[in-house]
């Protein structure tokens, strides 16, 4: 006998399609109607059986595995917690709490996908909107450096092609090569690799009414850029979906900054938005949770007893490549399949604990593997869609394994001691003995530090004259 669950959310990509009909028979998912090829494969090939944890490839019971994982993390001087993009916000919150307790570095896969887009947002803001607004209002949709026909197959059908939503919509694709997405676009602009920044700067100039002396920019005649700029200014509601073609190429965050500023300037005459094409199901949620827990979206270090932000310093690739971590806890991601070889090599050398619902390259090399349930299939949790809308995922199968949140909670219980903040300051005289109150002392210390910094630059801090 089979049962069908309607309106199931597919967690396989940042679209989080919430109209899937999942048919369950004999304890397995046998059909996922309305899902794309990626989503259907995700549901149908999911193995919900009760796997046991392993240590060094040998099966052990959960108590032993949790104990060993806790021992590894507790013994590490600088553990790294990485991944988080395919787990629920509830588990992400536990992971951040664990990082705080361990004094660890915590980073999500954002740092190797849309981290530069986040840096751009922090620099110049982001005129955003929801996918519902795109579906119902947008008359100009631009995909820049992305191939949603492969990475987000239902994006077209649900939100961005003319046959859904507005009928008068124009779809433009800007990319360095023809793809499946360029075939369905009304207009394809093929630019030279690495010319995104130059092209976006040109578009900003054209939107501002400036003249361009060059005849060709990025391998495309300027007349075509003029036509696109005119179309962007004339539309009623435009949106650009920014892909990894902007963030993974030279320029990185500067490419996205130019795009965001272009959209911001277009808002002087029309309505224009930018949405990063987030890949993994809840990578956007990782940014949200880390920001509300620590104040920073990724690459956060708790080693000083308080969160420190450092893309390029505390981001996973940098930390691994420089050998600055001595243990790793990988949650719901596969860094060995995606990180540069020098970073991946370091991950192979240090003791690694992995929480994942499926075997991966990283689980094969891990010291401790903790097989967990999958959110949206046999665990309940909250994911954030690529446009920042939180969506509740429900379970369609009974759980046979603990969730990431439950396992992280158990790991937290193994770390009872908090390394605590910085060492206490040296003893000083009390006020009665001629000393100064602590707050005043701190203020003096700050001023002295400023003096020292200013002194090295050939100047000094002065009192205000007014």
């Amino acid at each position: 006998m089979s049962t069908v669950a309607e309106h199931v959310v597919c967690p396989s990509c940042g679209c989080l399609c919430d109209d899937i009909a999942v048919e369950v028979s004999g304890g397995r998912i046998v059909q996922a109607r309305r899902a794309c090829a990626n989503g259907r494969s995700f549901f149908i090939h999911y193995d919900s059986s009760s796997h046991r944890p392993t240590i060094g490839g040998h099966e052990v019971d959960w108590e032993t595995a949790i104990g060993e994982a806790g021992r590894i993390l507790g013994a590490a001087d600088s553990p790294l917690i990485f991944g988080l993009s395919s787990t629920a916000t509830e588990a992400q919150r536990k992971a951040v709490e664990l990082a705080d307790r361990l004094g660890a570095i915590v980073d999500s896969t954002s740092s190797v996908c849309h981290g530069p887009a986040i840096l751009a947002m922090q620099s110049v803001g982001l005129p955003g909107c929801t996918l519902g607004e795109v579906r119902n209002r947008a008359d100009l949709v631009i995909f820049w450096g992305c191939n949603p026909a492969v990475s987000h197959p239902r994006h077209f059908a649900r939100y961005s092609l003319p046959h859904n939503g507005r009928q008068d919509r124009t779809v433009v694709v800007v990319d360095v090569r023809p793809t499946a997405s360029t075939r369905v676009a009304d207009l394809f602009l093929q630019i030279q690799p690495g010319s995104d920044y130059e092209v976006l700067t040109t578009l900003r100039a054209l939107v501002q009414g400036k003249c361009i002396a060059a005849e060709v920019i990025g391998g495309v005649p300027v007349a075509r850029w003029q036509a696109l700029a005119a179309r962007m200014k004339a539309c009623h509601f435009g949106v650009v979906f920014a892909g990894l073609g902007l963030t993974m190429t030279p320029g990185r965050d500067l490419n996205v900054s130019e795009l965001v500023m272009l959209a911001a300037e277009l808002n002087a005459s029309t309505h224009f938005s930018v949405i990063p094409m987030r890949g993994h199901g809840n990578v956007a949620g990782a940014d949200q949770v880390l920001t509300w827990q620590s104040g920073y979206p990724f690459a956060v270090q708790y080693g000083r007893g308080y969160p420190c932000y450092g893309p390029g310093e505390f981001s996973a690739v940098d930390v691994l490549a420089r050998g600055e971590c001595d243990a790793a806890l990988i949650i719901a991601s596969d860094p060995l399949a995606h990180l540069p070889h020098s970073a991946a090599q370091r991950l192979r050398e240090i003791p690694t604990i992995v929480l994942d619902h499926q075997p991966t390259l990283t689980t094969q090399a891990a010291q401790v593997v903790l097989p967990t349930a999958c959110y949206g299939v046999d665990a309940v949790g909250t994911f954030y869609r690529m446009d920042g809308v939180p969506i509740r995922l429900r379970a369609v199968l009974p759980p046979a394994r603990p969730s990431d949140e439950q396992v992280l909670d158990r790991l937290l219980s193994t770390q009872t001691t908090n390394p605590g903040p910085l060492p206490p300051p040296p003893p000083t005289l009390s006020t009665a003995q001629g000393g100064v109150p602590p707050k005043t002392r701190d203020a003096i210390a700050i001023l002295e530090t400023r003096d020292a910094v200013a002194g090295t630059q050939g100047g000094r801090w002065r009192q205000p004259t007014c």
Partner: protein
Amino acid sequence: MNAEDMARLGIAEGQVVRVQTRSGEAEVPVRAGALPSGVVFMPLGPAANQLSGADTDGTGMPLLKGLTVVIAIRWQQTKYRHEGSQ
């Protein structure tokens, strides 16, 4: 790889070539694809990871696309630009 480039360089469909960057190298089979001349494409994965360096220029993001690569075909060497996938 661009089909005309393959013909010009004498690379057959399925032939294994060595792709090199300043960070590493990988041996992969070649397929003809709809690509501009001078551009090659590799899907992300363990082979492509051999080619990318870990320098993130202070952003946390290594360059995973837009790398300049050298394709070694027996005794010949030709410079190409690599464009990875997401």
